[in-house]
């Protein structure tokens, strides 16, 4: 038997890595005495399978985890799947909240294989709303957006454009709309995960590239402080949804809600984030 969980990762805990989160889950499962299945061999590990790794520093409203139960022990002890979120959430650190748990079929495809895209919201600093709108339009209009990506420790050039499924400047909040010179702007995007996942920091690199800016470092760099007009710096990132797209229909890995693929992709991401 396999159980799929959907959980969020918000606040200070966003600074922990995917591996750290896996260890938090392992401890919580042991504390809850769940009859979980272990891998065979000299070093048995709990059978947990996480989806696409979330970059350290990013928040998420849509993390998934598949957990395999030991069939014999689970049958003996009984597992109330619907009660698991309330049981496990208090055993996990602050900032990790389980939204839902449902039994799923033991399919062969891992979460990593079936997810086709992710929705993100971002907060950029060092750029005004108007400047960012120009960059977004330029990126969407471009046929090819070449950026430097790191792969297996080596830098290589890659075309970002096919991976950007949707991109828009977020609706202005009342306070910042009043000030057109404000240098904090929201961005929403849907980025493909196949064949390779695109990270939000790489999207920002693409925005800089299409605006003719220096493809300087962004996420890791410090805020621009107005020294270079219009170089966006990624300040906050949140993954709002993961999608499985099949034959023009998108669905979430767990809730089974089906939405047509279309131009509202980015806006849907905003909806979830709000």
């Amino acid at each position, binding site marked *: 038997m396999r159980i799929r969980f959907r959980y969020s990762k918000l606040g*200070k*805990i966003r*600074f*922990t*890595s995917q*591996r*750290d989160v896996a*260890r*938090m889950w*392992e*401890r*919580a*499962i*042991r*504390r809850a*005495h769940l009859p979980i299945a*272990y891998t065979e061999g*000299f*070093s*048995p590990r709990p059978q947990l399978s996480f989806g696409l790794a979330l970059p*350290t*520093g990013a928040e998420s409203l849509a993390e998934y985890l598949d957990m395999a139960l030991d069939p014999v022990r689970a049958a003996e002890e009984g597992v109330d799947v619907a009660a698991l979120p309330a049981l496990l959430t*208090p*055993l996990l*650190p*602050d*900032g990790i909240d389980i939204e839902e748990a449902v039994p799923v079929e033991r399919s062969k495809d891992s979460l990593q294989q079936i997810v086709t895209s992710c929705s993100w919201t971002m907060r950029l600093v060092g750029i005004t709303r108007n400047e960012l709108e120009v960059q977004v339009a330029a990126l969407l209009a471009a046929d090819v957006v070449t950026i430097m990506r790191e792969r297996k420790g080596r830098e290589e050039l890659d075309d970002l454009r096919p991976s950007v499924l949707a991109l828009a400047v977020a609706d202005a909040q009342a306070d910042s709309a009043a000030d057109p010179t404000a240098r904090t702007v929201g961005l929403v995007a849907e980025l493909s995960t196949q064949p390779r996942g695109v990270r939000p920091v790489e999207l920002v690199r693409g925005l800089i590239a299409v605006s003719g800016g220096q493809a300087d470092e962004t*996420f*890791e*760099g*410090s*805020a621009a402080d107005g020294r270079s007009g219009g170089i966006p710096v*990624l*300040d906050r990132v949140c993954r709002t949804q993961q999608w499985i797209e099949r034959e023009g229909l998108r669905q979430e890995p767990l809730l089974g809600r089906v939405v047509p693929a279309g131009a509202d992709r980015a806006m849907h991401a905003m909806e979830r984030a709000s």
Partner: protein
Amino acid sequence: MNRDMESLWPQIEPLLAQVTKPARYIGGELGAQSVEHVPDAASWLLVYPDTYEIGLPNQGLQILYEILNERDDAVAERSYAPWVDMEAAMRANGVPLFSVEHHHPAGAFDAIAFNLSAELVYTNVLNLIDLAGVPVRAADRTVDQPVVIAGGHCVFNPEPLADFIDCFVLGDGEEVVGEINEVLVAFRTDAGKAATAGPTDRADLLRALSRVPGVYVPFCYDVAWDDTTGRLAGITPRFADTPARIEKRTITDLGEWPYPRRQLVPLIEVVHDRLNVELFRGCTRGCRFCQAGMITRPVRERPADQVRTMVSAGLERTGYDEVALTSLSSADYSGIEETVTGIINDPSCGGQVSVSLPSLRVDAFTVGTAAQIQKVRRTGLTFAPEGGTWRMRQVINKLIREEDLYAAVDAAFSQGWKRVKLYFLIGLPTETDEDTLGIVTLAKQCVAIGKKYHSSVAVTASVGGFVPKVQTPFQWFGQNTIEELTRKVYLLRDAARPVRGLTIRWHDPKATAAEGIVSRGDRRMGPVIEQVWRNGGTFQEWSECFDLGLWTDALEANGMTLEDAVYRHRTEDEVLPWDHISAGLHRDFLWQDWKDALAEHGLPDCRWTPCYDCGACTGYGVEHVVASAVPPAGGSQGTGQDLSTGGQVPVRFLSTAPSGAAPAPGSGGSAVALATEGKS
């Protein structure tokens, strides 16, 4: 309670996107205490002066953290050394050192207390005091600034840090931390000040601290220098009520202190990332190079049923699947086998728990126990013969015969292990090249034994350069030079090269020299440490940051040499910088033990032989507290000595009553917190 206890999180948060491992700075561990700073309580910032991953598991710091926070008149938070990238970001943005719980600024605490476990962190201590916004030199601090405190093994030679630390605390901290807190409350809280109505300048505070037994306040002592030699002539009290010699503190019954009750479980991976339960404190094996064994005497065992309770409750609370039973020589714990079996077979432990004994004794019996407890995740076994020949091991009093080691290694390989690690020291007193090369002879034979059972085995001989430590019989020994240690390393490397399956690893002899500079230094070493720090020498324990040139430059600038500070043998009549500091060991016992070492004369464990009068028991009116008069198998360390005379030995036996049920001071009754913790 100090002013300005405001969270710095809004300033810290933007820095975290720029640094490696940002989760080092966010707190949020299971067991972290949400503390409220109230006017009547003294506030402590407990600091481990190395990275979060190294410092978080430190048991001493965690014990004091809980004991202080259980008091109504104290609050404690924790901090660790920010890595160089974070420190740079903090300094660039004017962010001071902060606590991980609430991100409070270090300078707002009443006390900043450091755990000193290694000498090479001293430059980090200065850096952290500075990062806290507090003057680095104790003499420059005002009455309102935090009191800077240090404890831990290194304080048995406090002099190199005497210029920077307000007070050093010697020995077990469980009791004395409360006594120090009472002084802080009297001098630092409004209620305390009103009650005493006495003088409240910093000198009064320091003098009050110096009256707490086990506390050394450098301010209260005069240092005299010999005009002709330039060497130390003596350290004497300036005031009538200041003790001439400061004795360490010793708790008599470990069973009364079942801490940590709520071991911290970090969000990120740290060293020793498992449940840790202390089996006993102290060791009487008498290894002459081992400072920990000398300064923590006598042996005080934790009652076995309390160990079991702490293990089962701890695993339940933390979700760890591994527990380490810690001590200086865990296989020596009375009834270790029963204790381990009990944990493995405890149904509440779920059958998925592995037990580790961090310090294995070298004998086949111990391997049998290890085989039993490492059913899962069998990685490698480590033994520490320390010396390459029997002669060498008699000198250092590590009385392991070759047969013992071979039997242990045979047992390990025959029971499925394929990797064995051996620890050795080089640069020991009287060491010859024959002794050094004996390391390869032993290791080679271990490879041959392994080949009987497996087609491919890996034996690693890990070689460290010996640094003579204070309060040990080797405190008079002149350390080997960098050149000599390097020569010995190459000797080993060349001899081991043709042996397939044998790897030699070694510690950098330059780092060994730097450790030697600080280990036995006097107050003249303060400016050296300060200069190394001012020239950027932090994290000197880390090979990527270590720079011997900083140390030798600073020595030279202060008119000293490696020759005099490190390589020179000390004489019997020489005043040692730590002579006014006592770990309970008589100086004549240590000198006799040094003479015995040079005569290649071993000294068996005093738990099961008559007393050698080292002073640790008699001086404090304490005895070794053990549960069994019979030494564990292999207890003779292979000397073949008749140890059946245990009943005549001056030890106190643990009562058989379940002392785990006895209420601990300040607790509500249950010795171990069983409550499930979660977020509120």
